[in-house]
């Protein structure tokens, strides 16, 4: 007879599915962090002088900063000098079409369920595929171009649309923001760039898929999304990495800018390699994500499903500057084995009548440790600001941890701020009850977990909601009814 403890052990020890690595010829810079390497990256990417200057300013800021100490986990020793800051699949010549992409790379992405061949691709989804430091392919570019939508790699945007990049780069996450953002400013390699022109509703989901392959490298990509007046875009990022014994650093920066009445929906399904059951290896996912609702009645919505990484440390945030703008944060964070997640959001209410909604669902299994950390700040000008926060924790087994650190700062007495929180545990009684109705333990756990996260998964675009549900099932065993 299977008892629920065995099920819980199974859940805690499930293998990582995307742990393979690709054997491909790479250009890899020698390890070390210094001005030379920054100049090397900048030259490699044929960047204009202003961008190099900006990188160097970032590096100068980085050198003055120290690692923060407020996080709810033991900060691992990071030897930033031991990392290589540039790794790219070696290309023979400039690519003109997808047909010229290295078949090995296409095969890698196929294997990950991300076909880059447009005929095979998910209809209605354009993909930018980033392999280690560079973008290897972007699908449906032509189709998007007809509508004036720019969707390309960051490097390409620097060449083709330098004015837009110059105007907005670092405008939401400055190079002095925090130590990882400063590091990213100095050494960022590639990433995605999106511009939606005025009045355009982007006809397809835009998606970037990040894959870390090379050993001893860090991934430092930058994403910049600008939604001009009255436009709309839905964007999704996905990520995986091979199983490696050492830890790898992922320190990305994402900046979102929503102008007058624009709406940006940003979804993440994060499945970086989490390390093995003893906590060996895995990605350190230290990412700075922030959006600004600059325009009146604009809206930014973050949805994240965090199942991977050894340590996830990030707070996708929204600055509600425009009057009547809206910010949302929906999150599912799962930890098992010895994973750590310290995640949440910051919402700054600046404009009048601004609204925000935070729904956070933490799931802890194995010896995982999950923290929600959030800030809701209401400024003096933000009359009638409104916030609702719901923060739930679900525990599986009795060796995991869950913590909540909600901060509320209000400087306007017309603001209404609500915070609700619950903690629950999947009990043996619940599993037995479902067993007694003919549902096996694995399915019982899946049923309970899916019920628990439904509110967040409903926010994801259809295809990805299904993917996320699958991923949760793989992560937590069992499937969905």
């Amino acid at each position, binding site marked *: 007879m299977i008892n629920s403890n065995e099920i819980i052990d199974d859940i805690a020890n499930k293998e990582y599915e995307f742990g393979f690595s690709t054997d491909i010829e790479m250009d890899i810079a020698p390890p070390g962090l210094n001005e030379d390497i920054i100049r090397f990256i900048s030259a490699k990417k044929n960047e204009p002088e202003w961008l190099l200057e900006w990188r160097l300013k970032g590096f100068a800021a980085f050198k003055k900063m120290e690692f923060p100490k407020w996080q709810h986990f033991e900060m691992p020793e990071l030897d930033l000098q031991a990392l290589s800051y540039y790794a790219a699949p070696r290309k023979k010549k400039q690519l003109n079409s997808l047909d010229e992409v290295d078949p090995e790379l296409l095969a890698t992405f196929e294997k990950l369920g991300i076909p880059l061949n447009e005929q095979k691709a998910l209809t209605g989804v354009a993909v930018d595929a980033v392999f280690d430091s560079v973008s290897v392919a972007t699908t449906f570019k032509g189709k998007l171009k007809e509508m004036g939508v720019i969707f390309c790699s960051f490097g390409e945007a620097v060449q083709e649309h330098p004015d837009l990049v110059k105007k907005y780069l670092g405008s939401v996450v400055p190079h002095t923001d925090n130590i990882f953002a400063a590091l990213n400013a100095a050494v960022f390699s590639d990433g995605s760039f999106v511009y939606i022109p005025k009045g355009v509703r982007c006809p397809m989901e835009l998606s970037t898929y990040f894959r870390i392959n090379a050993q001893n490298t860090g991934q430092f990509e930058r994403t910049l999304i600008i939604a001009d007046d009255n436009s709309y875009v839905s964007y999704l990022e996905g990520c995986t990495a091979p199983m490696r014994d050492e830890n790898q650093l992922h320190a990305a920066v994402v900046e979102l800018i929503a102008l007058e009445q624009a709406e940006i929906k940003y979804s993440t399904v994060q499945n970086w390699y989490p390390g093995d059951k003893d906590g060996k290896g895995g990605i350190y996912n230290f990412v700075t994500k922030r959006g600004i609702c600059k325009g009146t009645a604009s809206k930014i919505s973050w949805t994240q499903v965090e199942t991977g990484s050894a340590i996830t440390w990030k707070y996708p945030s929204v600055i509600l500057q425009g009057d009547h703008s809206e910010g949302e944060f929906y999150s599912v964070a799962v930890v098992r084995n010895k994973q750590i997640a310290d995640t949440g959001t910051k919402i700054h209410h600046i404009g009048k009548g601004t609204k925000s909604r935070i729904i956070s669902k933490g799931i802890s299994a194995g010896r995982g440790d999950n923290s929600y950390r959030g800030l809701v700040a209401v400024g003096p000008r933000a009359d009638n600001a409104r916030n609702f926060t719901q923060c739930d924790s679900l525990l599986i087994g009795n060796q995991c941890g869950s913590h909540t650190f909600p901060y509320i700062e209000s400087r306007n007495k017309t603001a209404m701020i609500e915070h609700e929180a619950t903690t629950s545990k999947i009990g043996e009684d*619940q599993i037995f009850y479902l067993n*007694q109705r*003919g549902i096996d333990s694995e*399915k019982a756990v899946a049923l309970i977990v*899916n019920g628990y996260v439904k509110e967040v998964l409903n926010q994801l675009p259809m295809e990805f909601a299904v993917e996320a549900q699958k991923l949760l099932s793989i992560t937590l065993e069992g499937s969905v*009814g």
Partner: protein
Amino acid sequence: MLTIKNLHAEVEGKKILKGINLEINKGEMHAIMGPNGSGKSSLASVLAGRDNYTVTEGEVWFNGKNLLDMAPEDRAREGVFLAFQYPVEIPGVSNLNFLKTALNEIRAYKGLPALEAREFLKLTKEKQQLVDFHSNLMNRSLNEGFSGGEKKRNEIFQLAMLDPQLAILDETDSGLDIDALRIVSNGVNKLRDAEKSFVVITHYQRLLEYIIPDFVHVLYNGRIIKTGTKELALELEERGYDWLKEELHLKESV
């Protein structure tokens, strides 16, 4: 249908069942009564396969299969249903989704295809009426925030939906007022048929005024010490259990 032979079981090293023998045939209604701590609910748990009980001796056969060899979910799929004394709450899982999953798991076990949404909803409506279960509870999370009476009615509703061969009702009457008791009993009576058997565990004769048993067993100290018909329940109501205990001690000392 169900044969229990010399069943012994313990929990955390404590002997709870000390040689239960019971034969239940198709279509029969058995009541099990007994004082607190006599092992009534333990018997229900052992039959359903709760894992903190250890069977140390004896056999249980269900339609010719060894019940004790089966995982709890397989016992359920074979047709053993337990109406819980304390139904658990499962937040986030709607009653409807839960029932659909359960029903389809049982159907899959029997090699039947999953019910289509329309058929499932039709069945749901029909059974709701049968056991007088409010449809507004269907989309709520399973038992979450239900009153004691609503939880018990949900158990009977599930019983109606899953249509088992053997239903064990563990103190379904506890915590019910007279009206709720009548509704629950009516539901059970409507579900009685020639193919289905019931084991009704109760403290009080009151329930047996509504659900008329074919047999009444008295469980005491882990054993069935007396078996009779519905008149035995009335006698117990009048005289309590002490006379039976004395009878037993007399027998044992002889």
